[in-house]
């Protein structure tokens, strides 16, 4: 099973037998890998009906729904991990989605493409055009990415909102890169966040 590099990092760090909610789970590749390799009880949420059908065909439990509207129905702390991979930048209200993510999961994985990567900067600086890169292949008018963010934007957000970070990984061409220069060198970031403490769950 060849997982995308950010998914491979997530898969490596999910504890065996955990309960996982994969938000924007696509055709269920990560969920199936977690189930088969680690006995994880995985559930998914996915917007695209074709992807849902494919995931159900893998024997997975996936609900067709929208991260922007359908997360409120999950009870607090009902999952060990909530995963949001490559979806944050497509949400209408990413801050609300992050709140829900941290409410539902005891921990949360968030991965997103870094819009401050040097290739993106060069493209805009020298070309004066919105970047079309390997990881951001869509043009400005057909991209699902409506909330562009950078590694430093996300770090600042976490700080402002008092969200505890348990892990962070940065990727460039599938290889790990350093944390210090991540905002320039990373194409992709994966954060492991600690869920919100809730005293009156439910």
């Amino acid at each position, binding site marked *: 099973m060849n997982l995308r590099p950010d998914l491979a990092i997530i898969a490596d760090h999910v504890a065996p037998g955990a309960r996982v909610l994969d938000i924007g789970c696509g055709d269920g590749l990560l969920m199936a890998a977690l189930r088969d390799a680690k006995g994880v009880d995985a559930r998914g949420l996915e917007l695209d009906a074709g992807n849902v059908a494919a995931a159900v065909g893998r024997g997975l439990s996936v609900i*067709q729904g929208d991260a922007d509207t359908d997360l409120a129905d999950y009870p607090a702390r009902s999952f060990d991990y909530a995963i949001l991979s490559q979806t944050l930048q497509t949400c209408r209200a990413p801050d609300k989605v992050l709140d829900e993510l941290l409410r539902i999961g005891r921990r949360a994985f968030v991965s997103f493409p870094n819009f401050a990567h040097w290739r993106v900067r060069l493209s805009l600086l020298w070309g004066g055009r919105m970047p079309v890169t390997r990881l951001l292949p869509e043009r400005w008018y057909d991209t699902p990415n409506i909330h562009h963010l950078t590694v430093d934007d996300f770090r600042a957000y976490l700080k402002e909102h008092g969200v505890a970070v348990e892990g962070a990984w940065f990727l460039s061409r599938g290889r790990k890169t350093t944390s210090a220069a991540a905002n320039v060198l990373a194409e992709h970031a994966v954060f492991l966040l600690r869920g919100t403490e809730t005293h009156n769950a439910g």
Partner: protein
Amino acid sequence: MSDDQRFGPGRHVVLPGPLRLDGGGALAPVEIAYETYGTLAPDAGNAVLICHALTMDQYVASPHPRTGKPGWWTAMVGPGRPIDTDRLFVVCANVLGSCMGSSGPATIDPATGREYAMAFPVITIRDMVRAQAMLLDHLGVARLKAVVGGSMGGMQALSWAATFPDRVEAAVVIASAARHSAQNIAFHEVGRQAVMADPLWNGGDYYRGEPPAAGLAVARMAAHITYLSEAGLTEKFGRRLQARDAKSFGFDADFQVESYLRHQGLSFVDRFDANSYLYITRAMDYFDLAEEHGGRLANAFRGSGARFCLVSFDTDWLYPTRESRAIVHALNAAGAAVSFMELSSPYGHDAFLLDAPELYRVVTGFMGGGA
């Protein structure tokens, strides 16, 4: 097993009962007409129960003896189909209260020697499910690999998971709801009033004479509209005239849609009993799974370890997607394993009975027969 008279098409059994009913009282004996397809595994672990919709019957995958038409879900159930009778043992029973061989108003009441008619007890969806459970006991099936149904069949599937959590491994609920809305009840009331307004209905006592065919036909016509979508009707008929070039300025069926509905109404009365229509629509109206579980739908699924698969259709306004979503939310709250999809179709509620390749794909995948 081939010589075991319990298995095969066109079966009928009289179980001693009693069957305790939600409305009080009990039914004894309990007659159930059913069909089975495929072969029950030695450990009885491959049994699937198909639950039929309001006016359907047990002939899910074999020709209807009265109309000669193919089974109503042959695209879903059969060899190599999503519910694959080459590996699964499939049971479909005529529901309690219906008129194709199971106990219902047309059955002879042993106490009087006459048809029950309106003396038949009012039944619920859960009573239907309990009767099916008695049938499964008779067949030696302790646990269902899956219970599958659309519309009223979906209500039964939900009721199965809630009533017998230890007997259901998976439930497929298509174009259905956990309760009947006021609008659903309203449409059913129109149908019942049409039946009861027919002078031939005679307080339900018509079995020795002419049945209230006109009233039942009107009931069917009204119901049929709710099974379609406006877009579907427009596409199929528009305002086209039927077998004429100009309007007649009278009350003949000038429009194709009128002629179609009249045909639907008339062909229905040949195969369905008016009193059964009253009893089964009543059972659906009373259905409210949350109410049965302290007002919280999630409580209905607390004890269930079953996997669920729900499917709705975007043009179904009788059981719209939000009804399926309410069930999905409750299942999520109960921590159940649930899959859900809204499929796109122009055909309204009827979509689950028509050719729906995406539906077959999802059910195949869910039943474990897919990739």
